């Protein structure tokens, strides 16, 4: 699938998440993101990286809710406000984690116009650092275990950090050398295996655009209680249309399932 379609999908899903504090839509969107992740995540370390994002999301909810207790008059209204806003952030994190796992950074890099190639290269490298560090840490820990080093996790941290940093440095040097050897940054680039904007990509983009458009319009005309009232605390309305349109974000499941091993 064309990586631009994934970009559109993530943008649309993220904007939908930001546009509402209604827990029904947010939870449904989390469900959609988890389903897309399950079906489409690339095999490899990225498959597991969503856990980190979900964990961060839970921490966000707890922190945001906890913050409400610091501002004096604590009422059910203020706590629910914090909870819903935390949920919104957590949903956004889940969407981003899914995008991270389903998209291919180097393929996205190829989409950038030539003029921005250097900048986007730096961005792509920066983005890929987290998964590579996780892999490197796993390798180092395994190597230490094989040598019979058993220390508690906390005390192991310095022993772990140095080799991980070293590995990162080595990888960066190797990448730079290989790019240099291929004549990077000297004149025209040739493109291989150009991504095609095929029917599936189009379907994903259209579904994402449709969902986003419906949510924007609903926000405009005030349909479906996108922003839940917490002062006073009111049970939110739910619109079947808005819940249903979230299914348009599930198109990638049918179009681009990850290859089975």
């Amino acid at each position, binding site marked *: 699938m064309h990586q631009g379609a994934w970009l559109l999908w993530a943008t649309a899903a993220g904007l939908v998440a930001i546009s509402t504090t209604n827990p*029904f*839509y947010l*939870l*449904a969107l*989390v*469900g*959609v993101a*988890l*389903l897309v*992740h*399950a*079906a489409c995540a690339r095999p490899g370390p990225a498959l597991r990286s969503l856990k980190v994002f979900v964990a961060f999301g839970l921490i966000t909810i707890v922190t945001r809710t906890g*913050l*409400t207790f*610091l*501002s*004096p*008059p604590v*009422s059910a*209204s*203020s706590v629910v*406000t*914090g909870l819903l*806003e935390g949920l919104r952030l957590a949903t956004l994190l889940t969407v981003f984690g899914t995008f991270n796992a389903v998209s291919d950074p180097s393929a996205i890099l190829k989409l950038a116009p030539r003029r921005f190639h250097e900048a986007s290269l730096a961005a792509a490298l920066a983005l890929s650092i987290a998964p590579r560090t996780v892999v490197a840490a796993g390798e180092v820990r395994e190597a230490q275990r094989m040598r019979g080093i058993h220390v508690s996790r906390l005390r192991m941290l310095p022993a772990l950090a140095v080799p991980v940093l070293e590995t990162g440095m080595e990888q960066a040097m190797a990448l730079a050398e290989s790019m240099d050897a291929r004549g990077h940054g000297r004149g025209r680039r040739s493109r291989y295996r150009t991504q095609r904007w095929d029917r599936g990509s189009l379907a994903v983009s259209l579904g994402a655009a449709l969902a986003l458009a419906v949510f924007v319009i609903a*926000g*405009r*005309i*005030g*349909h479906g*209680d*996108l*922003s839940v*009232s*917490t*002062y*006073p*605390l*009111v*049970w939110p*309305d*739910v*619109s*079947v249309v808005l*819940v249903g349109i*979230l*299914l348009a974000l*599930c198109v990638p499941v049918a179009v681009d399932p*990850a290859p*089975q*091993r």
Partner: protein
Amino acid sequence: MRVRSTFACLLLVGTLAPVGFATQAACASETGRRAALVVDLGDEGDVHRYCVALPRGDVSGLDLIELAGAQHGLTYEFGEGGRAVCMLAGVGASSDDCFGRYPYFWGYWKGDGSGGWSWSSTGAGSTLVQDGDVQGWSWGRGDNASSHPPPPATGFDSVCPPAARKEPKPAPKPERDQREQKASGREPVTSGAGPAAAPTAAPTTRPTAPARLGRKVQRTQPQATRGRRAAAPTVTAAPVERGGDLAAVRTTRDERSGFSVAAVAAIALTVSLMALAVVIMRRRAS
């Protein structure tokens, strides 16, 4: 350690916030920026319109009410730690029981400047009032834009005439809406004293952040005035008697609560999506 310093930061912000407010109030003058504030008392009175001169610095929707109070004598009460509007121009609830008159509450609307209104998706504490803005508060029932009555169409120029542009402090110009006049045979209400209807009522704002640390609940209207002129024969006003009032609130809440079909569908969809995700994950792992 980090927790402690974060706490210290928050405390600092909390102590400094009132200072900021004080300075802001002090230099409230001659910026030439103005905003229109429309207060629609709905079934319980008239429509007040105020042209409010904006001071330097950021002005939130709640600050605008305070400014209207200082410049034109609009009475108001904030509750929930200064985050929710409980009472405006004598209509609404006291800050102790800010939502006492729910389902009636103060709906917060943003005007487009030429008469149209849109339901504000954020709380008045977190909106920024700009020069030429129109903001509206309407007393009524209905939890969203489709069911809550908006204030009457009001353009910015009709409240703040262009001729008065350079005037630093425009004179109070509350205008009465004709549709209200005939509604009840009560004396016309202007910006100053409001007829306090039943002293229990509900307001609304939809704040998003704990923006107002250390802010005091405002109480502008003297206790004596409140409640005395109340209980005029307004048609839909909640009964003054406390017990009856509560009962009314409870029944409407019961009507609303309870899962609607759409809510059940949403939950079912969410659960099935997650279950499907787990199944696919399992299959891929094996």
